[in-house]
C-alpha cells in the first residue's frame, strides 16, 4: 500500500474543493481585510498614533494576516470534513486501506494550504495600504505553518464531533473569534492591567500573533521560545486527540 498516493489524493481533493469554490473561500478574506485597513488603519488608526513603536497600521498587519490564516485553516477542515460526513463520502476513505494518520494529514494539509494561501492573498492586499517590513522571514514561515496546522487540527476535531452544520459554526463564533480579537491582534497586551495580561497568557492566539509580529516588526509581548513551545504543545495535543477520535471511529463508525 502506497500511503503517499493516498495522502496526495486527499490533499489534491481538498485543494480542488476550496479552489472550485474560490468566490466563497478566497475572495471574502481579501474584502474583510481591506475593510479592516480602511476603518482601523486609515480612519481610526491615524488618530491612535504609535503602538509598540510602530504606526498603528503597521502594528496590526501581522495580526490581521494571522487572523485570516487561523479562521480559514479552521473553517476549511471543519466544513470539508463535516460535509464529507454529511454526504457520507468520508466512507470512501474509511473502507479503503488508508491509515488514520493519512486521513488526518490529508485534511490538515488541505486546511493549511487554504490558510497559507489566504494569508498570502491578505499580505498582498496589505501592500496596497502599508509598506510591509520583514524582520525574520523564517520566523514568519514557521509561525504561519505551525499556526495553520494547529487550527486545521482544531477544525477537524470540531467536524468529527459535529452532528449538524450549526455545530461547525458554534466554536468559531463563540470561542475562536473572541480568542482572536483578545489575542493581541489590535493591541499590545502590555497595555493591559497586570491581571488581564495574566489572563491573556492563557490564550494560545497571543503567542501565535506575537511570534508572527516578531517576524515582521521584531517586537513581541512574549518570548519566541515560549511562543513556539506553546504552539507545538497544542499541535501535539490536538493531533493525539484527532488520531484517537478517528481510530475509535467517533462520529464516523456506528
Amino acid at each position, binding site marked *: *500500500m502506497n500511503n503517499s*498516493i493516498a495522502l496526495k*489524493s486527499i490533499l489534491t*481533493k481538498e485543494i480542488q474543493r476550496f479552489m472550485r469554490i474560490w468566490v466563497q473561500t478566497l475572495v471574502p478574506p481579501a474584502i474583510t481585510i481591506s475593510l479592516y485597513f480602511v476603518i482601523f488603519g486609515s480612519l481610526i488608526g491615524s488618530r491612535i498614533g504609535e503602538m509598540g513603536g510602530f504606526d498603528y497600521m503597521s502594528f496590526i498587519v501581522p495580526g490581521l494576516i494571522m487572523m485570516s490564516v487561523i479562521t480559514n485553516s479552521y473553517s476549511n477542515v471543519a466544513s470539508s470534513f463535516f460535509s*464529507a460526513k454529511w454526504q*457520507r463520502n468520508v466512507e470512501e476513505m474509511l*473502507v479503503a*486501506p488508508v491509515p488514520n494518520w493519512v486521513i488526518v494529514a490529508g485534511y490538515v494539509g488541505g486546511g493549511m494550504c487554504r490558510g497559507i494561501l489566504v494569508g498570502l492573498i491578505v499580505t498582498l492586499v496589505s501592500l496596497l495600504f502599508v509598506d510591509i517590513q520583514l524582520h525574520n522571514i523564517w520566523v514568519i514561515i514557521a509561525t504561519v505553518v505551525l499556526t495553520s496546522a494547529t487550527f486545521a487540527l482544531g477544525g477537524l476535531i470540531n467536524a468529527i464531533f459535529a452532528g449538524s452544520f450549526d455545530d461547525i459554526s458554534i466554536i468559531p463564533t463563540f470561542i475562536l473569534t473572541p480568542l482572536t480579537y483578545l489575542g493581541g491582534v489590535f493591541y499590545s497586551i502590555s497595555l493591559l492591567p497586570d491581571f488581564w495580561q495574566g489572563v491573556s497568557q492563557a490564550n494560545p492566539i497571543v503567542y501565535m500573533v506575537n511570534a508572527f509580529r516578531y517576524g515582521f516588526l521584531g517586537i513581541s509581548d512574549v518570548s519566541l521560545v515560549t511562543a513556539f513551545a506553546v504552539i507545538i504543545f497544542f499541535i501535539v495535543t490536538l493531533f493525539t486527540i484527532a488520531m484517537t477520535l478517528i481510530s475509535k471511529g467517533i462520529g464516523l463508525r*456506528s
Partner: protein
Amino acid sequence: MTYALEISALAKTYKGGFQALKGIDLTVSKGDFFALLGPNGAGKSTTIGVITSLVNKTAGQVKVFGYDIDTDLEKAKSFIGLVPQEFNFSQFEPLMNILVNQAGYYGVPKPLAIERAEKYLKQLELWDKRDDAARTLSGGMKRRLMIARALMHEPKMLILDEPTAGVDIELRRSMWDFLRELNQQGITIILTTHYLEEAEMLCRNIAIIDGGEIVEDTSMKKLLAQLDVETFVFDIKEGTPITELKQFAEQSTDITYRVIDDHTLEIDLNKSQNLNQVFSQLNAANIEVQSMRNKSNRLEALFVSLINKKSDSRKKKQQNADVGAN
C-alpha cells in the same frame, strides 16, 4: 481452505441496546456469487458494515481472504470493493475525480487510475458524463458510478448492498450481465437484494438472515428444491363461460384450481402431481388452454415461509420464557 469471507460468532449491539447481529456464522468461497437475503432490519447492512469496517463489531471474528479484520485490517480492506445501499459520493465532484481519488486511496498511481476510470466509465455507459458533477446524474447512473468506483482498485471481492434498488428493468438486466461477467473473471460477489428474482437469477449460494440470525445457509438449488408447491397460470381461450370454469374448479378433488376471471385459471401443483394430469382434466372438460406460465417468484414464497417459521418459533420461545418467568 481459505475462504473469500469467513464470519464466526459475529455479534453487534448498537448503542441503546438494539441487538442487530446475534452471533452469526457464514462462509463464502472464492469465486462464489453469494446472496444475503433478509427483510428490512434483519442485519444485512450491519453485516456488510462490519466486513467493510464501517460498523464496529461487538464480538466475533471476520476474515477476508484469510486476513483477520482485527489484526490485518488494511490488508483485508484491500480485497474488498463496496457498492453501498445509499449514495455516498460527493455530489459536487466530477465523476472522473471521484474515481481517480478512490483509486488513490488504494495506492493506485494516477496514470493507471485514469486508464481504469476510462475503462469502467465506458463499460458502464457513463463516459459522456465524466466531467459532470455527480449530482447531475440520474438514479441509475449514480448506482453505476458506485459500481465503477468499487472496481477502481480491482478488488477480489465485490460486495453490493441492494445494487439495483430503484433501477428500471432494462438497466437492471444490463447490470446483471455486467456482474455475471465480473464473476466469470473470478471476482467473488456478495449481494443483498430486495428483488428475490435477482438472487435466483444470479447467485449460486444463499444465506437468509432474520432478526440478526442466519435462518438458512445453502445453495440456491437446494433451497429451491425445498419448495414443494409451484403455481401455474393458464390463459383460457376466450368464450369459455365463467360458470363452466367455476364448476370445473369445484368438481376437481385432487388438484387445486382457482378461477381468477373468465380467461385465467391458477393451479397449485405439488411434487407428486404433474402437468399431464392437469391437461387430461382440462381436455376432458373441453377447456382450451392458449398459454401457460409459472407464477411470480418461487423464491419469494420460500423466503416468506422461512421468515414466518422463524418468527413463529421466536414467538413460541418468548411465550415459554414468559410462562417460565411466571
